[in-house]
């Protein structure tokens, strides 16, 4: 039986791990390579790096981090943030990333998703969707949540599936950093509208939120940062808790 995945996410800035509250007010908390190794030794099903300020700053640090991590961690590694072109994707994959997540570029130029999934295979193309509730709909935001687009999240998800995305990483902007739980309605709406796996993200504060993301949000995988990063829970504890709630996990 296919297991639901737990994916710790490390937000990386200038080669160091940070995690913000609502994408601002960052705290420094460690070396990404060491953190990733701790997570993979602890049973993380995948590791995710988000280079959060990549759009604005010197981005070469992430390549070094990816290269070092991929020599130490033998679980899948997803890298996102500032990925704009096929060359960016190629460079990350060559450094040892297994998947690349595309956010702003997928909105600005959906051809990037089409071309990259054709060139590198859908298995390594994750489209990251940052969505904010607006009435009874959700709107897509780009540039790390700074720019409104007016694009409907559900329609966009379907379009990305058609374009060749292998997975969707869905982050609720309303919930990110709040620790009050995923936007379950958003997750389940997107999940029921596409046939590719959905990774739920944004808002995890406790282990029940992970359970809800899978059971109620129908997510194939759950991504979380702060709860693991600041040592509130270990990945192992999270897995044992999910297992106790009848969710299939790799233990």
């Amino acid at each position, binding site marked *: *039986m*296919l*297991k*639901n*995945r737990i994916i710790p996410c490390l937000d990386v800035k200038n080669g160091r791990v940070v995690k913000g509250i609502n994408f601002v007010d960052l705290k420094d908390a460690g070396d990404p390579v060491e953190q990733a190794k701790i997570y*993979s030794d602890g049973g993380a*099903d995948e590791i995710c790096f988000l280079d959060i300020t990549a759009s604005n700053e010197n981005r070469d640090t992430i390549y070094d981090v990816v290269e070092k991590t*991929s*020599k130490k961690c*033998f*679980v*899948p590694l997803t890298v996102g943030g500032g990925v704009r072109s096929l060359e960016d994707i190629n460079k990350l*994959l*060559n*450094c*040892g*990333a*297994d998947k690349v997540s595309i956010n702003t570029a997928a909105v600005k130029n959906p051809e990037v998703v089409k071309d990259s999934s*054709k*060139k*590198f*295979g*859908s*298995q*390594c193309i994750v489209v990251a969707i940052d969505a904010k509730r607006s009435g009874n709909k959700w709107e897509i935001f780009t540039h790390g949540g700074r720019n409104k687009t007016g694009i409907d999240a559900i329609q966009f998800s379907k379009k990305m599936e058609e374009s060749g995305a*292998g*997975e969707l990483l869905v982050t609720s902007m309303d919930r990110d950093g709040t620790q009050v739980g995923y936007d379950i309605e958003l997750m389940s709406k997107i999940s029921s509208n596409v*046939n*590719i*796996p959905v990774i739920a993200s944004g808002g995890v504060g406790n282990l029940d939120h992970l359970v809800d993301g899978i059971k109620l949000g129908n997510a*194939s*995988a759950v991504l979380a940062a702060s709860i693991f990063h600041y040592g509130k829970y270990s990945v192992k504890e999270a897995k044992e808790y999910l297992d106790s709630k009848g969710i299939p996990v*790799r233990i």
Partner: protein
Amino acid sequence: MNITIVDYKSGNISSVINSFNEVTKDKVKIEVTSDINKIKLSDKVVLPGQGSFKSCVDGLNNINGLVDTLNEFVINVKKPLLGICVGLQMFADIGYEETETKGLGWISGKVSKIDNQNGKYKLPHIGWNQINIIKESSIFKGIENNSHMYFVHSYEFIPKDKNVISATTDYSSNLVCAVEKENIFGTQFHPEKSDKTGLNIISNFINL
């Protein structure tokens, strides 16, 4: 001993290279190349594969003499080869991804899309799934039945002769996830991304 990982410009092979280096710790020479003379001189060959069946077959065909060299290595000289993911799928006679494409024909069978049962199963089949070992295989030495492996694929290899199947995994149906036919080994899952258990499989292949 030297092992060649075939680099035919089809998908990302850095994880495969990293995992072999991790296991061998520089004791075995790992060559990453498309040079057919180096492949001929190798003791073992690894055939990775990402992307579509068609793009991988095209990638092999684009390198002059590569397919003939691999055929010679596998069929006549009978040295060990490990195919990973689409690398395994290409063992088939034919694949149906994108368009009907002829495979290497080393293990008779076809590669078709996994039946998603009208959307009941999401595709790609991504994540950790357990393998059911149904035949003793030297690459599974010391690997427990029901071990978890990392998968990512939408197509499955359906061999004609079921005796070649060494393991299956349950997703929509019992998908073939490992094959062994004499000196030919293949895994649909990614041992290079399957943590310590996966590295053990790589180690078993190296120690054949």
